[in-house]
């Protein structure tokens, strides 16, 4: 376990950025996003939910998968094998770290998504343990610990004047080794501080839901009238899906200029009317009801059936961002009927 004074943080990031592309949470016009680290940026260490979740580093909103040119002989350039520059993410929150594991189930399962795998392998994740949850945070409902981030390579904990860094993987250890000379060995006092911080972080949750049995209940609810009522408010924007750290649907698009072009993979949203629109004009999810149902069934029924976990980490972004206040919290509460201490 190591530590670094907050005043030295900038130096540390500078060192890291020499080795890899380094991204840190930065506020711009009041919106916090992961942005490339630069000497003069102010790292935001307090905001819990960055706007666009860090899944984008493994599963970008837009990526060209291949480029072709048929103006002479057919030429195809495959981008997948080139994906994955050496990258470091600093300040990923535990909920988002745990979303990576969910994405892994999709993209590292069979068949493996090569570009995704390479990005994952070449990225070192430095998590930042949470100190005090937001009112919309409900990660503890999914048995996550806000001060811990088991999937991260390094866990950083803010202990006040210092940040304590503990490597959790070999990648993490290697990273900390590079920083030798700059960072110090943590003391047992520091270790205690970390433990205290982790314990303290669990306090102060104002929002929680009981997810027990939700999947099972939903098994029989596909045709339930509940969806008729629920969807009415939905205006079919894609905010929830795009701010969700676990949504992972994409569309393939052709960008063609006649004899040349690119095949592009980009995020898609099951909230959109054209998500399931077929070439001949039929749409198996013709109204917003089917689309809203799909989103929640996927997160709370299909995904856990297939992968064993709910596809939600309780980050609360959809709760905060949905323009019509239609979110997963409400659905879990209403389905499960066993709300916690709201």
């Amino acid at each position, binding site marked *: 376990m190591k530590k670094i004074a907050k005043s030295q943080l900038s130096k540390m990031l500078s060192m890291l950025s020499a080795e890899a592309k380094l991204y840190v949470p930065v506020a711009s016009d009041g919106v916090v996003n992961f942005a490339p680290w630069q000497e003069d940026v102010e790292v935001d260490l307090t905001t819990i939910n960055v706007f666009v979740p860090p899944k984008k580093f493994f599963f970008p909103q837009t990526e*060209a998968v291949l480029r072709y040119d048929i103006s002479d002989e057919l030429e195809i350039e495959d981008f997948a094998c080139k994906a994955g520059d050496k990258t470091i993410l600093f300040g990923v929150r535990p909920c988002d770290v745990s979303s990576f594991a969910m994405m892994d189930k999709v993209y590292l399962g069979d068949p493996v998504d090569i570009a995704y795998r390479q990005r994952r392998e070449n990225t070192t994740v430095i998590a930042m343990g949470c100190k005090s949850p937001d009112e919309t945070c409900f990660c503890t409902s999914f048995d996550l610990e806000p001060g811990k981030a088991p999937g991260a390579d390094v866990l950083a904990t803010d202990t006040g004047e210092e940040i304590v860094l503990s490597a959790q993987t070999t990648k993490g250890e290697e990273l900390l080794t590079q920083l030798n000379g700059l960072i110090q060995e943590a003391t047992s006092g520091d270790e205690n501080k970390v433990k205290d911080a982790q314990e303290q972080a669990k306090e102060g949750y104002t929002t929680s839901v009981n997810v027990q049995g939700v999947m099972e209940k939903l098994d029989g609810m596909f045709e339930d009238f509940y969806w008729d009522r629920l969807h009415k408010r939905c205006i079919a924007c894609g905010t929830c899906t795009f701010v969700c750290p676990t949504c992972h649907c994409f569309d393939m698009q052709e*960008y063609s*200029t006649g004899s040349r072009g*690119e095949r592009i993979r980009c995020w898609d949203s099951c909230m959109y009317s054209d998500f399931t629109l077929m070439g001949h004009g039929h749409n198996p999810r013709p109204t917003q009801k089917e689309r809203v149902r799909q989103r929640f069934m996927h997160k709370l029924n299909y995904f856990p059936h297939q992968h064993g976990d709910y596809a939600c980490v309780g980050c609360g972004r959809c709760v905060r961002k949905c323009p019509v206040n239609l979110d997963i919290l409400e659905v879990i509460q209403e389905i499960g009927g066993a709300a916690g201490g709201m």
Partner: protein
Amino acid sequence: MSVNLESHEPLIVAFCCNWCSYAGADLAGTSRMSYPTNVRIVRVPCSSRVNPSFIIRAFQRGADGVLIAGCHPGDCHYHSGNYYTRRRFTVLKRMLEYMGIEPERFQVRWISGSEGAKFAGVMNEITQEIKALGPNRKLRDVR
């Protein structure tokens, strides 16, 4: 698509109405008035057929400049088409400028079927102006 700055020859898409400006371009041809090869004409029946989306599409695909050319006000073959053109593209042009797109990149001109010299003149002028600005990077797709 890469752009070589030194030898950059701008690409200009000109939407010309069939009755006036396209005829003006033909007259420039018949009169052998030369102008740069940078201009490519898309023939439309009337300037009111030009959708703002076409303009943005051209910029996205790499055009360095876009021109809409139509009949002079009052001379529209279809009576009133260019009056709509005037309203639509007055506001579009000003919005593009407002968003930081150089005013020279998107222009609207009235060129009649008898103004072959004006057609050639406008092509020369616009090509010069856009060449001076260099390649369009602001609205261009990154592909």
